[in-house]
């Protein structure tokens, strides 16, 4: 765990100071204390049961590439109970609304260290945002519109409140990304506001209805019911993320099953997946296609499960007959993942990743543009990683030498634009072949059989 950069500490201190200024007028003003207490308890309770959030990712050694662009996670893991905060902002004067956020945020569970600092940061952030929302809402006469209730006019101040809330959150989040993770300020701010606006708008509507019902004859009890659909949505989202993680683990298990048979390529599949994504980004593919390419890269050799273990582990050169059996693996792989609907384009990559541009590859001997784009990308990523990782029978080549080799074969074996894209991506991000933390052995094989290997993709 590295230490927090002083600039980030300074940014947090500014936010805390701002939040304290927001809370300062509390003792003097006429504050509806019972309502504040109810909201505070409600928010703390909701925050306690909701999923942990990862809003502040103060310094961690994050991979610079391959992961998602910064700030994206902050928007998707909206683990807080904004409807309660926004309802508070629509009902209470600004300082009291800011107070509602404080105990809940201070008590909330925090996943990553430094915990105390993250809690303080988050509290300050939410207090400031809620204060701003309440201020904007009040300035347009929203509180009278809520009591009346004066529809559709009540929507206007509520919308202003939501905008203010989002703007403050995005500003503070962007600042922390810029100071703590050294993301360029413009990249940090870009999109943060737009991405969070949609979800917060829905939360704002729920908050508005909650506020209206709270002030209606039906009272706070009816207002509480507004939260139930939100709770269910949170629960579903948590479940979705859990299932998705489990699904990714299963994909990894498919790859590990290949490792059981073919011990020497440990980590190869994961790295091919990463290199494929780098190329995809460089080629300007949309996020979904890049993600599909990651799966294509990870699963490209899954068909080796169908090749007899004896052949995969054979020392010495393969006979033509044996070579033919090994060359069936793309078809096996394609057959195996046939039932997985979401792979779609990636299945073509699994089937054709050994095709060559001049038509001398297998299984179908496709030429040039006949080869699907995904397969051309995976072929380059596969060859690159095969050359730059240490194999039992030879040492790893340096990245520059591997690129030189790829360029030499571009046009006959590889697609030149894809090779160029890889070169550009490498010059921009570098190549960090370290395997994920759960595999301490790296890519060095446990046992070292010698001999020619069929899978040398550069051959």
């Amino acid at each position, binding site marked *: 765990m590295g230490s927090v950069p002083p600039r980030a500490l300074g940014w947090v201190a500014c936010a805390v100071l701002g939040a304290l200024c927001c809370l300062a007028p509390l003792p003097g003003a006429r504050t509806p204390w019972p309502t504040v207490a109810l909201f505070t308890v409600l928010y703390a309770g909701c925050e306690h049961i909701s999923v942990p959030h990862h809003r502040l990712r103060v310094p961690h050694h994050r991979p610079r590439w391959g992961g998602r662009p910064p700030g994206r996670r902050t928007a998707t893991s909206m683990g807080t109970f904004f409807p309660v905060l926004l309802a508070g902002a629509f009902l209470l004067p600004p300082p009291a609304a800011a107070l509602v956020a404080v105990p809940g945020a201070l008590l909330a569970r925090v996943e990553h260290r430094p915990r105390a600092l993250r809690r303080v940061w988050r509290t300050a952030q939410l207090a400031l945002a809620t204060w701003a929302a309440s201020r904007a809402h009040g300035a347009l006469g929203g509180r009278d519109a809520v009591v009346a*209730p004066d*529809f*559709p006019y009540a929507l206007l101040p509520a919308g202003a409140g939501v905008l203010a809330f989002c703007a403050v959150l995005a500003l503070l989040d962007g600042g922390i990304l810029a100071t703590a993770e050294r993301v360029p300020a413009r990249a940090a701010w870009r999109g943060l506001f737009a991405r969070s606006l949609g979800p917060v708008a*829905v939360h704002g*509507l*729920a908050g508005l*209805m909650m506020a*209206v*019902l709270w002030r*209606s*004859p*039906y*009272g*706070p*009890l*009816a207002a509480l*019911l*507004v939260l*139930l*659909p*939100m709770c*269910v*949505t949170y*629960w*579903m*989202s948590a*479940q*979705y993320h859990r*299932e*998705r*993680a*489990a*699904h*990714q*683990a*299963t*994909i*990894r*298990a*498919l790859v*590990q*099953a290949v490792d*059981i*048979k073919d011990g020497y390529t440990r980590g190869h599949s994961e790295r091919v997946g990463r290199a494929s994504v780098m190329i995809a980004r460089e080629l300007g593919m949309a996020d979904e296609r890049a993600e599909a390419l990651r799966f294509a890269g990870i699963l490209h050799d*899954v*068909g080796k*499960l*169908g090749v*007899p*273990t*004896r052949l995969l582990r054979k020392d010495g050169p393969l006979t033509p007959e044996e070579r033919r059996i090994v060359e069936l693996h793309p078809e*096996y792989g394609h*057959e*195996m*993942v*046939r*039932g*997985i*609907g*979401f792979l779609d384009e990636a299945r073509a990559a699994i089937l054709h990743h050994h095709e060559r541009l001049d038509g001398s590859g297998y299984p179908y001997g496709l030429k040039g543009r006949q080869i699907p784009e995904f397969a051309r990308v995976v072929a380059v990523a596969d060859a690159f990683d095969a050359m730059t990782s240490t194999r039992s029978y030879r040492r790893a080549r340096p990245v520059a030498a591997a690129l030189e080799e790829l360029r030499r074969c571009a046009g006959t074996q590889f697609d030149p634009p894809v090779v160029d894209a890889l070169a550009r991506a490498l010059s921009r991000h570098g190549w960090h072949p370290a395997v994920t933390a759960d595999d301490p052995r790296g890519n060095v094989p446990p046992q070292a059989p010698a001999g020619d290997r069929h899978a040398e993709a550069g051959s």
Partner: protein
Amino acid sequence: MTRPEPATALVRGCAAVLAAAALAHTLWHGVDGRGTALAFGLLVAVGELARWSGGGREAAPLGAAGALAYALLGADAGHPTHHGAPQVVAVVTAAALAGCVPHVSSGRGPCADHLARRVLTTAFAAFCFQPLHARGALPREDGPWYAVFLVALLALTVLCDALLAAVLARARTGWPLGPLLRDELRAVLGIGSAVCATGAVMAPAVAVAGLWALPLFSLPLLLTQLAFRRCTAVRATYRQTIASLARATEIAGYTPAGHAHRVAALSRAVGRDLGLSEPELTVLEYAALMHDIGQLSLVDPVPEGATAALDPARQRRIALLGGAVVRQTGVDAEVAVVVERQADPYREQPVSARVVRAVNAYEEKARAAGPAGSLRALEELRLATARDYQPEVVESLARVVARGGLTLPRTG
């Protein structure tokens, strides 16, 4: 087209008679509060349009919430309403029918049962609430008890709906009613509770803020539906991936083609017959799909993949290897336990492992013995019930197989 079961016919008949009577009553007396009726009708129709046929339980949460809210509506923007129960049923029926038309015309499944449920559930809520409201026998609106009353009434309604759904499912599938009802009730805790809460809060919100409340409340519920859909989609993908992992052993030549799928389908049927709940059935299905995965660690395949004929020590070794692989897949740890224990004597096994063991042995033996293999395989299993297979499981398997006409279910 087969004739529906008596229970299904009864439910549909009741709903049809009720709907016809309500429509006739409404046509005769005229519609009270046209604007409100139109708005709620639109909401229900849109909800039905947004219905999707995955996930099973509550396919159209917005439609359900809109219908319940109309049934519980006592005032509109401060003015009391007098639309009465028959009009509620009539409006909801008409709107739901309209919303169903695109689904039927594009052939996305029949919606007779769905409509019958919607009509009967709405009628229940409306006939509980509207007469009391008309007579002024309800708790005072300006007190907190009103919300409590609404929630209690809706909880009762949802219970009725669950019972109805379970009865219909039983008539459709022939599975035991108890576990079906339990699964329906468990589903109520998920999206059902969101529907219930939205319905309960929409009625007072319209009473306070007028019809503006309808779109405002629909949005969070639509979000819930989206989350639910996303969750269902990832679950389906997950299942496909696990099935692919299961196919790995087949492609590697360790097991015959389709073996894992057949064992999974039969295990699920036997688990149903034994009254396992939906989560238990999922564990059972995953374990059955992956029960042979340990063979991937063997250098040479077992002949024909017939693990049931191996000596116990080897069987157990394969099972342990399989468990180790399954633990890496990130599925529920229970699945790994089932895979690990599949070769143990049945008294030491969890129920799911007993089912997987018996079904696997049955599948292998029945395949080996040819056309009349089914009976002979069952006979062999019965002879081994002292130690290896649980007698109850074998009997349940016999029932399931008999129901299927003594053939192995072929599934894709």
